[in-house]
């Protein structure tokens, strides 16, 4: 029993430290939101990629960056209703 508790604690520590670490009950929404947030962070973190998108959209890089940041708030819409 103690072992199980410890594993649980370790997992929680990991989940706290590394965002996106899954658990047994990860929902599709959690998972896709996590992937989308990772992608948006990568788009703005790699300067050539941000530049590429800005040229394509005909706007400044700062605006594209804001768009990426804003999209990270709720990338896949609100979580679906859960049945209690």
């Amino acid at each position: 029993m103690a072992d199980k508790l410890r594993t649980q604690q370790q997992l929680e520590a990991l989940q706290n430290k590394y965002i996106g670490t899954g658990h047994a009950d990860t929902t599709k929404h959690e998972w896709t939101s996590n992937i989308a947030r990772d992608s948006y962070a990568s788009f703005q973190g790699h300067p050539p990629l941000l530049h590429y998108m800005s040229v394509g959209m005909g706007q400044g890089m700062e605006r594209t960056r804001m768009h990426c940041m804003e999209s990270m708030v709720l990338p896949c819409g609100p979580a679906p209703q859960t049945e209690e």
Partner: protein
Amino acid sequence: MANVQTTQAFYSLTLSPPSAPTAACTTNSIPGLKNQDQQIFEARGSSIYLHYIRENQDKTEVKMETVCSQDCFGIIRGVTSFRIPGTATDQLVISSDSGRIALVNYDATKKSFKRIHLETFGKSGIRRTVPGQYLASDPRGRCVMLASAEKNKVVYIVNRNAEANIVISSPHEANSWANLCFAICALDTGWEHPVFAALEVEYADAESDPSGAMYVAREKQLVYYTVDLGLNHVVKSWSDAVDYTANMLFGVPGGQDGPSGVLVCAEGRIYYRHDKAEPLCIPIPRRKGATEDPERKRIIVAGCLHLSKARHEFFFLLQTEDGDLFKLTMELGEDAQGRKTTPVRMVMKYYDTFPVAKTMLLIRKGYIYIAAENGNSKLYHVNDLADNLDFEPENLFSSDDVSADPAEDYTPTYFTPRQLEFTSLAADVPGLHPLMRTRVENLAPEREDAPQIYALQGTGANSVLKTLRHGLEIQEIVSSPLGEMPYDAVFALKHRASDSFHSYLLLSTAYSDRTTVLSIGDEVETMEDSPFMTARATVEARLMASTTLVQVHARGVHSILESGAVNDWPAPEHRTIVAASANDRQLLLGLSSSELAFFFMDDNGVLSQLEEMPEMSGKVTCLGVGQTPVGQQQAKFAVVGCDDNTIRVLSIELDTPLEARSVQALSAVPTSIRVVSQTDPASGTNVSYVHIGLASGLYLRAVIDDVTGELGEVRTKFLGARPTRLFPVEVEGQQGIVACSSRPWLGYNHPNSGLYTLTPLVTDGAPFVAACPFVTEQVSGLCAVQGDSLLIFSLPNIDGRLASQEVALRYTPRNMSRNLWYPIWYVVEADGNTLSQGTKKGLLTAGAAKADENENMNGIEASEQDEDALALEKHLGYSRAKGHWASCIQAIDPLTERKVTATIELEENEAALCCAVVNFESKKEELFLAVGTGQHMTPGSKLPGAEKPKGFVHMYRLTNDGKKMELVHRTQFAYPIYAVTPFQGRVAIGVKTELLIYDIGLKALLRKSRGIIVPNQIVAIETKGLRLAVADVSESVTFVVFKPSPHNRLIGFVDDSIARWSTAITLLDYETVAGGDKFGNLWVLRVPEQASREADEEGVGGYIANERGYLGGAPYRLELRSHFFAQDIPTAIQRTSLVAGGQELLFWSGLEGTMGILIPFVAREDVEFFSQLEGLVRAEEAPLAGRDHLMYRGYYVPVKGVVDGDLCERFLRLGVDAKGRIAGEVERGVGEVERKVLEMRSRVAF
């Protein structure tokens, strides 16, 4: 089988590093310079640069000089600089993808960057929660904060200890779960505890609420993080909600200089916020004009602060996304103690309009540096700080009566943008970003032996087609025809050695055996009564022993003493002088009888001959004596070239005259020899080099051993088809060589790298015959005989190695295609979210009609007005409008007329995306331009109620030698067209997932074949024979075979196992494709042998047509042959050769302005040698910013089959010890390793 090389290996080199700036800051890193004399520390791509602004006495010439640059082999994300109290120079901080913070210093003695600290705080790579996205440093130099896009923030406290070493604390973290960080900045708190401000949004509530109400109610917080220096920790000290659209923060000066706090820049408004003061708000003025949307809100994209510590005054310069600069000042009210600490009002004044900056810097010397997002970075001189409030009062706005509550509405303010008023352009930093497409092609093979690089660059109104050539630009000063006589030699002489200018110019012609003497004064004119011999051709002319002018001609030596007396030495009977060379004291002649005659000149200017006249093994063709070393009378060696393909080094010292020292065999007859002493970059000492030109057009350079006279370190380069002739010159105070073959070349020590560089001179017209230095009061340059004219020119800049000419385009270029028969390019251009010409005209005439009612036009001529309006529009950029497209197709003659010859504007919201010149099988005598377009496209955002995007293919007939285009017809498609290409006398078109083959008809294109090939969107098609390589936007490349009539089937037979987001592809051969993707990778893929064989079977009865797909794709998978992370997004890739007679290689160009090559290795030993060298250099010198090199080059996929040449070239910059160690490890000499590294580049490129 073990020795069979199964994979092709490449050697990757960068020709021009990326020019797009990622970050920049001002710094005082060079010790000994004044505080005012700031430098610029800039990051571009993976390199860091330290620039210095050099201005001449009266500030008329300003230059941005790169003091030091280094490739960090990592993605640099931010830089900052700060002064730790008590230290002499600024610390530089680099945040990169290494998960480490790097503290760097500039080491002025070694002229390199020195790493002080490297602290790990997270994983490597660019991740959501690893700090590095944002970087801010305390204005008092006490700590630095790094933040990530989500959750993590880390603060390092930096100090100086008693031993004057810089110490860095352990990281202090300030993390908050589910918290997004939009911006950070450092507050100016004086000497109180440092505070960092951050814009944050918490998303935990929004995410867990299924109703979406929490999402709507989300707030953006301005959070203060106080770094408690006493307790050594970071605390969240204050937070408050701000305007939700806020995107940027600027720290307001504090302490004695101002009220502290931050400027929060949001969409349409700027707020002043602080925990100890009332908030203020001012709207960002919008542009006025008939074509401007009055409702469009701007955001601030860049800004800088000016703080005068002496007067406690400050102001901000803030730039909007349109490029308009505003000066923001704050008026402070007095508090109870009479101190000016409470801000009561903000005032904004329109300043000027600049290109949109990534980072804007104000330099204390009086400049504004715009590290431009697109196009050349620019340095502006500040002429006026717009202090006069009466000037343009309509452009002055204040925060009075504006509520600081973001929920409340405000009345927008408007201004009219104009040309530069307060500033003037001081320097332009050449850049190639954004590089949309390149093509290497030789459009004028009859005139130029090397191909040119045609580059589409820029966005919007600043788009250009650049013609790039490897070479130095020359500034022509005089070019005057010389008449009929074919002159073949030119000598410029001083009258006395102490003169600073040249007095005589001798032009000699062997053809008519004559010399023309010109006197150089205010003008250059023929001298009638010169002391020189004019009835003979001059072999050599020189000033010897300070005052004696010596002229060598075929029949003797003519020396003119200072007194005017003339001494003549006649050549021995039946013999003529064929070659001669002299220095200050020694003169060596080669006679037609293969004998040498040697002279020494005494102080009186009298030549005394050595009695011995040794005979050489063959006819003497050329010779060169060494330059007289400073402070000595004699040079040690002379080099004699004979027609038996040898050169001999002879001693010419008086005690051992004409004693042979060494012999070297050559591949051809030497035609020209020069012995020049140049600085050796490694040791910094002067070394004698012998430069040899051969009849085969080769050029050799070797070092003469100072003691033994042995030749060593031979470097070879092929210059052109003509025999090479060499002429010593002086470039920027250093000895150099002009080598004339079918093109003139300049050999010099490069001012930045210090390496000996050979670069062609870009000249119009005939090749050079001869050249010499030319210095007068007005001109300091070179003089050359070019064909039948005399050319006097100077070299304005020897830093760059690419000469460029440009033709202005109208919109952002998307693609280009070359006319198959004439040197004409067709460029398709499109700007998203921009008003089209037609719409704009409509708006303008509507506006003008209104204006006309009010006042009649004054008598200004319409055309003049138009021209001004055009220039203004180019300066300000086009009017923007969401969902609109402006697009056109242009034909450009880049060589003769150097201008646009035809323009076709597209209407109805269409955007041209791709083009190809097609010669249809059914209309062989005509050429057509196929242009793929998209209509009603909405990149990035879907507008509510917008029409579904459609596509068209326009066909234009090319007339008038390709200079004009006539619309034939346009064919509609269901989706935008991103790829068209000629295929088997027809045209292949990619429509979303379908590949279609069309023939031309009378009213529309006629479909011949159709195949559904890729899963998402076809973005590029390349063809060879009946095979097509089709690139998908996200699913790599699929190979398709076309089975011609009667089957007319397109069969995809190989695809890839990795999802590559392809941007550019090219077929290397029938079975191999090379390409690049959006994440900055370069790859080479190959079709498996069996698949290739089966695909080529006749008809559709064979195996391939009936084969079942494997795992939902094609039956076979491509094999990965090479993979390399280049960081920049490749926009073009091409198999070509870059120099005359050079091996073929893979040339690629990237969006950020990178141009690079992949050179295929020919020999297996080379692969082994260079991979070993790469490994050793990697171990010897770890990248500066702390990224692991191998991890970096294998960012997404492990690097395969590519040796990083840029890293190998770091070998040349290593210290002597390190070089020796590595050379020992590879069992070669240092010189040999250097030669191999240099030759790898110089053999095929530049």
